[in-house]
């Protein structure tokens, strides 16, 4: 138990470091660059119409207040942290006066739902198929799958999403290609709405799954083909242990351990992919929110979504890390 506690403390320390560095990065990017967001917003407003000088001065002042740009550098830094800790990112400029936190709260369930389901499916399926491919090396269809995985895996998310969009939106239009659910349905726990959500999520999650599958498949295949030659597996084979049992509890069980670490380490990259996939399919999650906020020039919303995504990803990594000892008992005694 003592070992597990020390392990947990170390992981929580790493989590705090990630959040600290991430938030500081966001602070430095927004504060240490020569471009002043206040002046940008002011010029964006005044370029279309003539405004009285004292009205501009007033606007400048309230914008500075809004962006937390008042006072000394240190004051600004403290304000920045305080706002993040209480989850207050100010009102959104493009959807004034809705607070940024409300917009994020609305988008977060969509992203979380899409990401968690597609990541779990990808991880489970990729590892299962990869494990089989590593164990049954002569199987033709598993070999073909390896070739396909090598061909699709290195392609960026945008290209695959675009290909699916063209294929199912224009060539063979059977699936909805935009939005999170049908427009005319009220949100609620009824079958019509839920089925519409599922239908709309097929293409975005399919593109995430197609791309993610390859790396788990290839990783698991090479892990398993190394483990198969280990002495204990050979011994089990010679002793006549059932081959299905060798595969599940001798080979796969051991190969899964590094794959869980891999999952924690690639969550950030998976999130990157989800951002762009959401945008391509017009899915109403954090990614679409972020990109639309950039187009609308909405400073507080961009900063809010960035911070929340850093927090969200690092919390997920922490959860995986804390569950890790269940799979690998060595951590508990270390």
């Amino acid at each position, binding site marked *: 138990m003592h070992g597990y506690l020390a392990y947990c403390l170390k992981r929580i320390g790493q989590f705090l*470091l990630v959040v600290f560095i991430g938030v500081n990065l966001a602070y430095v*990017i927004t504060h240490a660059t020569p471009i002043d967001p206040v002046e940008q917003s002011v010029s964006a407003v005044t370029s279309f119409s003539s405004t009285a000088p004292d009205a501009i001065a007033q606007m400048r002042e309230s914008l500075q207040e809004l962006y937390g740009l008042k006072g000394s550098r240190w004051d600004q830094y403290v304000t920045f942290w305080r706002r993040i800790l209480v989850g207050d990112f100010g009102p959104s400029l493009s959807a004034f006066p809705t607070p940024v936190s409300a917009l994020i709260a609305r988008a977060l369930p969509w992203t979380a739902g899409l990401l968690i389901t597609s990541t779990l499916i990808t991880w489970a399926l990729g590892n299962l198929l990869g494990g089989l491919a590593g164990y049954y090396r002569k199987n033709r269809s598993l070999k073909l799958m390896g070739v396909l995985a090598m061909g699709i895996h290195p392609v960026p998310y945008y290209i695959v999403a675009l*290909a699916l969009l063209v294929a199912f939106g*224009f060539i063979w239009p059977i699936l909805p290609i935009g939005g999170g659910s049908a427009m005319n349905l009220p949100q609620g726990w009824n079958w019509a709405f839920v089925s519409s959500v599922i239908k709309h999520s097929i293409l975005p999650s399919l593109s995430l799954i197609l791309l993610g599958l390859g790396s788990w498949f290839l990783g698991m295949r090479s892990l398993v083909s190394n483990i198969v030659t280990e002495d204990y597996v050979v011994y089990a084979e010679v002793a006549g242990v059932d081959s299905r049992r060798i595969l599940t509890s001798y080979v796969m069980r051991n190969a899964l351990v590094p794959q869980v670490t891999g999952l924690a380490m690639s969550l950030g990259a998976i999130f990157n992919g989800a951002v*762009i996939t959401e945008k391509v399919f017009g899915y109403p999650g954090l990614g679409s929110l972020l990109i639309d906020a950039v187009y609308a020039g909405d400073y507080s919303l961009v900063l809010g979504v*960035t911070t929340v995504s850093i927090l969200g990803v690092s919390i997920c990594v922490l959860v995986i890390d804390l569950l890790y000892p269940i799979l690998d008992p060595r951590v508990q005694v270390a």
Partner: protein
Amino acid sequence: MLAILRDLLRYNIEFRIGLLLVGTVLGMAMLSFVSPYSPIDVYVAPPDVPPSEAYWFGTSSRGQDVFWQLTFALRNTLAFGFVVAILSRILSLLIGLVAGYKGGWVDRVLMSINDTFIIIPLFPILILFYFVLRDSMSWVLLAVIMACLGWAYDARLIRSVAMGLKTREFTQTSLFSGMTTREILTREHLPYVMPIVFSTTMNNMNWSIGLEVTLSVLGFTDINTPTIGGMIYWANQHTAIVAGIWWWIAFPVIFIVMAFVGLYLLAVSMNEYIDPRSRLARVGGGGS
């Protein structure tokens, strides 16, 4: 060096395919030097002409010959990936070698920072950069930013090799013969990690090109420098798919996919070559 190349060509089909794909893409990029058009000129050809003998890949709605535009785009995109890869290799070598050799608290601090950069989702950070810099976001600046964000994964890999090298006898010998840490790292350890550096270069190029394509498709880069993402961006701006001008999107996509798969296959085959077990399995005709 030549012997390695010969072995790879003879025994490794992935390497052959990868070389072929990357070679084709590189050849295409080289053609940009003999292009009859300047890449930023528009309306130099009749717009919206489908692929024909005069215009092999058709022309765009902006009156550009897609073939020649593509040569410039590939050149810029590949050069971008290469610059990011070189810059981030320097960072990951420095951090990986020092962390592996020094060990102790230096290692722990460096690896905590390293893991942080692996965990943080970089895409929102890049978008934040663009949002703040706007028009000042240039090609070079983006390359430097990406290099500063993209070293972490490979630094960990290099560190794991460096940790093994530290316990080898020759490290002790050079230490006792009075070499400084810098000399040991650059003269003794660096040659051992070079193979990994080569194979991670390809993967890193894929990573940075992928992000660059994504950013420029959204219009979050300097859209006047022709890149693959930039071409798709302009095609989307002119709603090329809906208008049926498929060649404007299809050819950039085909070539960039060739580049990705080719670079990836090169990286995979080099990795396999570095690992003596899998190399023997292949050369000996065994394995699967």
